[in-house]
């Protein structure tokens, strides 16, 4: 078992509480730095998407995981960032300027969007964010002078001080932004702001009685979350080189929420797990479509089921797998299954595995249980 002995408050506060944690994270950092030289182009490209989604996941964690505010309209912030990036880049404004600028502007929009949050709770807030996202999407589609409407916009390659960013440089840019956002989010958790967030999440009444200005921190959570998402939007726009309003629909907002549901609502690491999962899901689905019917057929052959039964099962499987709605079906099922069985997401499962290995053979399955709150009405929060 790992027993951490801490000899000073400063030590307890460190980013990497143990030497082994520092070692493993350091190794991860080196691997990420070396990635362009180790991975093929396709995988590097997927890694860039992972980084972009990780930034959004962290943003969702700050707002929903830490501060407990529901948002199912985050695609709006993503879109605003993306379009600002597109417009700025086409006007030859330097990348660093509009990267930060888009983040700041989106943060401001987030602040404004957070103002209604002061008076709305729970479900009302969720629906208000939904309404907000629809309105933004519609504005982007209609404001053809700036956004080219439903035809979408093309982007030039990103350039920094005159140099075009190739694939590798763009990857490092995304990595840099992701690390900065990660550090900022981790800093929040270790600071009075983070504690104010958790107070607001768990009991606004008590938070106010402890002197926390709930209005200020709620809007701040929205602003920070929106700002991070906006920056991710800029990177996304450059990655795809083309954006249009339908790429930022409600389904994308749901995807974003899925990142933290699958990954783990309460932790930043969870957001990263969730991002990895969401990006890997597409290649996995394709793999499944191609391989699974054959695999099942082979399995049935080994077991001894042959002939017409095997063929019809394979055909049926093939039809289901190739149906257009398959991804939604699987995502929907995953959401439900994760919420029922893995409320803390992949991060929770990871922690339980670590605990199992650390405590073996004394591990008790009930270690990771979750307290249910049947009788506590959330209507009166």
């Amino acid at each position, binding site marked *: 078992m790992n027993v951490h002995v801490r000899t000073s*408050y*400063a030590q*307890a*506060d460190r980013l990497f509480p143990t030497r082994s944690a520092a070692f493993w994270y350091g190794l991860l950092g080196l691997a990420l730095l070396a990635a362009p030289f180790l991975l093929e182009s396709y995988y590097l490209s997927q890694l860039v998407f992972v980084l972009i989604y990780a930034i959004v996941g962290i943003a969702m964690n700050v707002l929903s995981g830490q501060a407990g505010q529901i948002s199912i309209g985050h695609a709006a912030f993503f879109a605003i960032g993306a379009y600002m990036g597109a417009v700025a880049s086409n006007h030859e404004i330097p990348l660093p300027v509009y990267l930060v600028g888009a983040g700041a502007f989106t943060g401001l929009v987030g602040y404004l969007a957070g103002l209604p949050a002061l008076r709305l709770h729970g479900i009302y807030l969720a629906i208000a964010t939904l309404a907000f996202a629809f309105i933004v999407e519609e504005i982007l589609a209609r404001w053809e002078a700036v956004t080219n409407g439903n035809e979408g916009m093309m982007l030039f390659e990103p350039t920094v001080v005159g140099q075009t960013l190739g694939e590798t440089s763009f990857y490092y840019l995304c990595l840099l932004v992701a690390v900065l956002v990660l550090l*900022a989010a981790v*800093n*929040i958790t*270790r*600071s*009075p*702001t*983070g*504690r*104010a967030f*958790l*107070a607001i*999440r*768990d*009991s606004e*009444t*008590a*938070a*106010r*009685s*402890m*002197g*926390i*200005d*709930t209005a200020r*921190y709620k809007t*701040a959570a929205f602003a*920070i979350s929106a700002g991070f998402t906006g920056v991710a939007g800029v990177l996304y726009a450059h990655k795809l080189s083309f954006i249009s309003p339908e790429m930022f629909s409600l389904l994308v907002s749901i995807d974003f929420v899925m990142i933290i549901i699958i990954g783990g609502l*309460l932790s930043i690491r969870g957001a990263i797990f969730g991002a990895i999962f969401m990006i890997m899901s597409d290649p996995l689905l394709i793999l499944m479509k191609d391989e699974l019917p054959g695999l099942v057929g082979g399995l049935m052959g080994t077991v001894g089921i042959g002939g017409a039964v095997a063929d019809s099962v394979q055909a049926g499987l093939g039809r289901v797998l190739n149906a257009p709605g398959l991804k939604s079906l699987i995502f929907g099922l995953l959401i439900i299954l994760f919420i029922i069985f893995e409320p803390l997401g992949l991060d929770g499962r990871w922690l339980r595995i670590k605990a199992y290995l650390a405590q073996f053979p004394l591990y008790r399955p009930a270690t990771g249980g979750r*307290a249910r709150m049947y009788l506590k009405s959330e209507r009166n929060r």
Partner: protein
Amino acid sequence: MSYFSVENLSVRFGGLTAVDDVSFDVEEGEVFTIIGPNGAGKTTLFNLISRLYTPTSGTIRFRGEDITRLSAQEIAGRGIARTFQNIELFESASTLQNLLVGRHRHSTTRIWQDLLRTRKVREEEIEHRRAAEHVIDVLRLQRYRDMPIGGLPYGVRKVVEVARALCVGPSLLLLDEPSSGLNVEETDAMAEWILEINRRLKITVLMVEHDMSLVSRVSDRVLALDAGRIMALGTAEEVQGHPDVIAAYLGA
């Protein structure tokens, strides 16, 4: 001028007058207890003072300042902290984190500084930790420091509520039924804590209580409320012997 005073305070919810023209003073350094049968308006009075409710009329003064119109968070900033009858701890966090939230009004760093974790943030974090640990030592919560609140026994959570309020660094501490739900030993311990907080930490205590033995043991003065109105005010024996009070509790 008294340390803390309530003047002609009333609150009406629709047709119900929960607190009716209540006035009393609290001296600095005393333990002042409010008693009364259920539904007398004691917790409502508390909620008015800590500004979770807005009074319909009347004034509340603390150290000469009129605090009637301040918001709940500003009240905490003035040095008034409270506990909650039904425990409003932050269930998903550890004891230490709950206490650190209590320290909030002592932090001077702005949100952007927190994001960047400037030197000021780091220094203040150590300071907050030190102060929280001091409270943990006083209330003997070392065992529970890193445990999430959700898993703690009820008696411990009551103490953590008090600890968190202490971290606010209050001059006036409002305790809402500190012994409710506690057994005899725990109530005993709570009495000791209250005395220690009052005598050693020099904090004025205003509390609501049902347990008469606890009331007699720690209170300097007692106020009896019934149906939102004052029945009696005096020392514990005086109030307990007052005919109106006896009638209210036992039914005339």
